[in-house]
């Protein structure tokens, strides 16, 4: 694009788009082959001596064929992965407004602490008297989690949010069985995360959907009407996925308990209320806490997470193995059913060992840094920032439930794009060209073309203002018909829009060595 004086107006201008390089690389943006297409046989980036081995102890099971791994030196491997890293957007490089994901700042202190040898270099099965510090740390984190949530205890072994959901539902299942009852139905609101119904089905329950009201809340009347002697639990996200606190939460919890069912809370949105509201006071029986959301352990491109589950007094006896106990001899992990004290009946085991220790250290480091006052300030700032975004955009974008205050995320739908030819997807992809990661799109399912923005407490006002300016301008451009920037966006990312249909129709899920070209064909 040229200005009135004929000068290019910026990157991606006419000249930039057509400029061809000799290498195919473009400045700092390098094309990078797969690791399997690099290197040469026999090369390695790790030096080990050759060892003499005898076949006699291999049980006749020695590998017969080579594996097929490439050989590269260390500098080649380092360059390869550094180049790949530069193709990623990250919270460290910009605002990451993914609703429901809580992309907040990941303090590097936490990384340093997680690498201390007393946490990173201890084995899950070394004698318990040699890991007292690691157990004490877990105990201290449990104290923070139960205090912040007002709950009775916490099961530490679940490895992610969905794994925590499974843990909570299995505790509920065990509690119902212990009462000599069978209850098969779980109520799940329409607005729930997909993991909720998936987990309920995995735990052997049937899913019954509760509708939403026109103002974005769970329909409490419909919920109460669905309660009955076959309902095991309700799985509710609060604040919900529309970014709203459920005002009738206490009433719903009471009705659920009166019907003999349990209240599972999806804790994905705990960042809105941590330090100010205790789920235990809301009647919650079980809630997973995504340490990788609320307590800043890095998302790492999709994991690892950690999903400890806080439990009410009613569900505490059913917490899974291992159980952490403390007596005059110090801390002790109870690992087997036979060692469990009377009154406790663990439903089983969620994974081989104790849970995501590396994430526990990072989360406790975050909590100690913040303190209870800092955690409260974080949730206030997260809610304030989301409301600021909502208030600043609701006149140009459409906020389906925009009248009242929201919690830590602001929800918009696509009605402001009606008739423009621009879709939610186009709008999101245009944000990429502006240097932003898009918001969560098409979720929750209860509004059309949803755009869910969660700025978190980590953004300065200047950063929010710049973001708001970009979104306002994009919305205005779409409305006045300046839609070229949306068509086929993004234009300036390492890749243009990718063909997801092709990927699913003809799955290519691994590199394969190209078939050798027949000699005759090669000669032609």
């Amino acid at each position, binding site marked *: 694009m040229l200005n009135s004086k004929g000068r290019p107006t910026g990157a991606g201008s006419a000249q930039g788009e057509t400029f061809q390089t000799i290498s195919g690389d473009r400045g700092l943006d390098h094309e990078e082959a797969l690791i399997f297409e690099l*290197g040469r046989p026999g090369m*390695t*980036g790790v030096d*080990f001596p050759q060892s003499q081995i005898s076949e006699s102890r291999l049980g006749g*099971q020695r*590998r017969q064929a080579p594996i097929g*791994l*490439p*050989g590269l030196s260390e500098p080649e491997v380092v360059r390869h992965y*550094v180049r*790949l890293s530069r193709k*990623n957007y*990250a919270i*460290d490089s910009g605002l990451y407004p993914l609703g429901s994901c809580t*992309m907040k700042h990941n*303090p590097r202190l936490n990384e340093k602490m997680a*690498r201390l040898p007393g946490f990173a*270099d*201890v*084995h*899950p099965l070394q004698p318990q008297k040699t*890991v007292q*510090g690691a157990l004490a740390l877990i105990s201290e984190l449990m104290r923070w989690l139960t205090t912040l949530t007002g709950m009775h205890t916490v099961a530490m072994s679940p490895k992610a949010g*969905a794994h925590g959901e499974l843990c909570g539902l299995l505790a509920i299942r065990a509690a119902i069985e212990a009462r000599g009852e069978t209850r098969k139905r779980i109520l799940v609101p329409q607005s729930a995360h*997909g993991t909720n119904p998936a987990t309920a089905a*995995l*735990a052997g329950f049937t*899913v019954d959907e509760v509708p939403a009201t026109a103002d974005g809340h769970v329909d409490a009347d419909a919920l109460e009407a669905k309660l009955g002697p076959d309902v095991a639990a309700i799985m509710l996200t609060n604040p919900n996925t529309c970014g709203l*606190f459920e005002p009738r939460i*206490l009433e719903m919890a009471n009705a659920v308990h009166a019907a003999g069912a349990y209240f599972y809370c999806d804790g994905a949105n705990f960042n809105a*209320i941590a330090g100010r509201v205790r789920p235990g006071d809301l009647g919650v029986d079980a809630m997973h806490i995504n340490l990788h959301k609320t307590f800043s352990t890095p*998302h*790492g*491109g*999709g994991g690892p997470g950690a999903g400890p589950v806080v439990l009410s007094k009613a569900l505490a006896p059913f917490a899974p193995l291992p159980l952490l106990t403390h007596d005059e001899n110090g801390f002790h992990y109870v*690992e087997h059913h036979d060692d469990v004290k009377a009154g406790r009946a663990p439903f*089983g085991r969620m*994974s*081989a*060992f104790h849970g995501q220790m590396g994430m526990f250290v990072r989360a*406790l480091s975050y909590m*100690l*840094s913040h303190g*209870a006052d800092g955690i409260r300030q974080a949730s206030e*700032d997260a*809610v*304030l920032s989301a*409301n600021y975004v*909502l*208030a600043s955009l609701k006149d140009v974008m459409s906020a389906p439930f925009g009248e*009242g*205050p929201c*919690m830590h995320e602001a929800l918009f739908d696509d009605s402001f794009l009606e008739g423009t030819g621009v879709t939610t997807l186009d709008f999101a992809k245009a944000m*990429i060209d502006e240097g932003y990661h898009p918001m969560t799109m098409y979720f929750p399912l209860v509004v059309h073309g949803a755009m869910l923005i969660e700025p978190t407490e*980590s953004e300065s*006002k200047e950063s929010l203002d710049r973001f708001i300016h970009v979104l306002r301008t994009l919305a205005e451009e779409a409305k006045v018909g300046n839609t070229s920037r949306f068509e086929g966006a993004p234009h300036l990312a390492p890749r243009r829009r*990718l*063909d*997801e249909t092709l990927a699913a129709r003809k*799955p290519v899920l691994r590199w394969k060595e190209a078939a050798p070209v027949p000699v005759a064909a090669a000669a032609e």
Partner: protein
Amino acid sequence: MRYHPLTPTDRADMLAKIGAPDVNALFRDVPKEAIVSRAKFDLPDTKGELDVERILSRFSAQSTAAGAVPFFCGAGAYRHHVPASVDHLIQRSEFLTSYTPYQPEIAQGTLQYLFEFQTQVALLTGMEVANASMYDGSTAAAEAVLMAQRLTRRKKAILSGGVHPHYAETIETVAALQGEVIRAPVTPGEAEDIAAMIDDSTACVVVQSPDVFGLIRNLRPIAEAAHAKGALLIAVCTEIVSLGLLESPGAQGADIVAAEGQSIGNSLNFGGPYVGLFATREKFLRQMPGRICGETVDAEGRRGYVLTLSTREQHIRREKATSNICTNSGLCCLAFTIHLSLLGEEGLTRLSRLNHATASALADRLIKIPGVDLITPAFFNEFTLRLPKSAAEIVDQLVDENIIAGVPASRLLPNDPNATNLLIIAATETTSEDDCATFAQALAGAL
């Protein structure tokens, strides 16, 4: 608070724009009785970095790090050397602080390494396809059983007695909900006749090799027996470095491989985070759980990568999904991928030979002690000894001599009287000649 950029003035300006008198007004939907004051939380206030470091370093100092003593624990988690460049690269902001690659145009870094990871896992396990990781080996094994139950429409899973008991309990916890899980008797140092247990109602048989005692199993006859009855063979592997030296489960006829990838690229971390490896045959692809990365092209025809086949997953299929899994082990699979790229064919071969040679030399040294028997004739880097005394007591005693002697089998099988005197011992490239000599001398002294 150093992590919060908003100033009091900013907050006041933002409230003015919102039209709210104070921040409490934004929480108006919260029932008043549910709002608690700062005083309700018996927790300390904000601390600077220095104070936090002091507190956490004290916790760290109260444990014995594996690297500080002669160390011989395995049984599902192994201490290997991780090259410095691995930990440096995974801490690049662009890898560490990005989300799941739902916007592929600005996540090609993550997607390409996932594609490389899937390829590496498929090659190592000898399978056709692999997913982009599970939480760990045990949860991968549980998902494998659920997948086999779906594929065969049969309920019964038979677990070998050599499957790590914690894996077996993890599998039971989820797979017994809507199916049946049968555990074969534990036969330390021997392969049970599991083929005889397979019948027409068997969905799958789960066999670990090397097994929890370190014994290398021959999967071929089990695969044949399972296939003859229409059942699937799930191969479990907790020490993935072994596949540098041993025949892959795929080559032996496994239908699904569920493995722990911690040994490559990841520290012990007291049990997590680790990285579950999951691989299967192409024909079973649509029932495979977890995220999958696939190759495609962009609008200009350039090669690129996306998450694909998501119609199996919970965010699309909800209660009809193949699994409820959402988060995987992204950064741990990156560590795995980088470390394995550094090793390459040559490095992994050398590493695996070195592991076997070290463990073999240690076994030779220890069985010279009177009364000590090696019960695992074939092993990789881990073997089991029968001692003349309780192994738990010996391990406890050697802690006082600053030696962590291994995992007593009774830690995993407390009710099995045959396990009392069994000690499971692992040695890797990190085990020195001195470590082995110190251990042998102390063990001889303790017996």
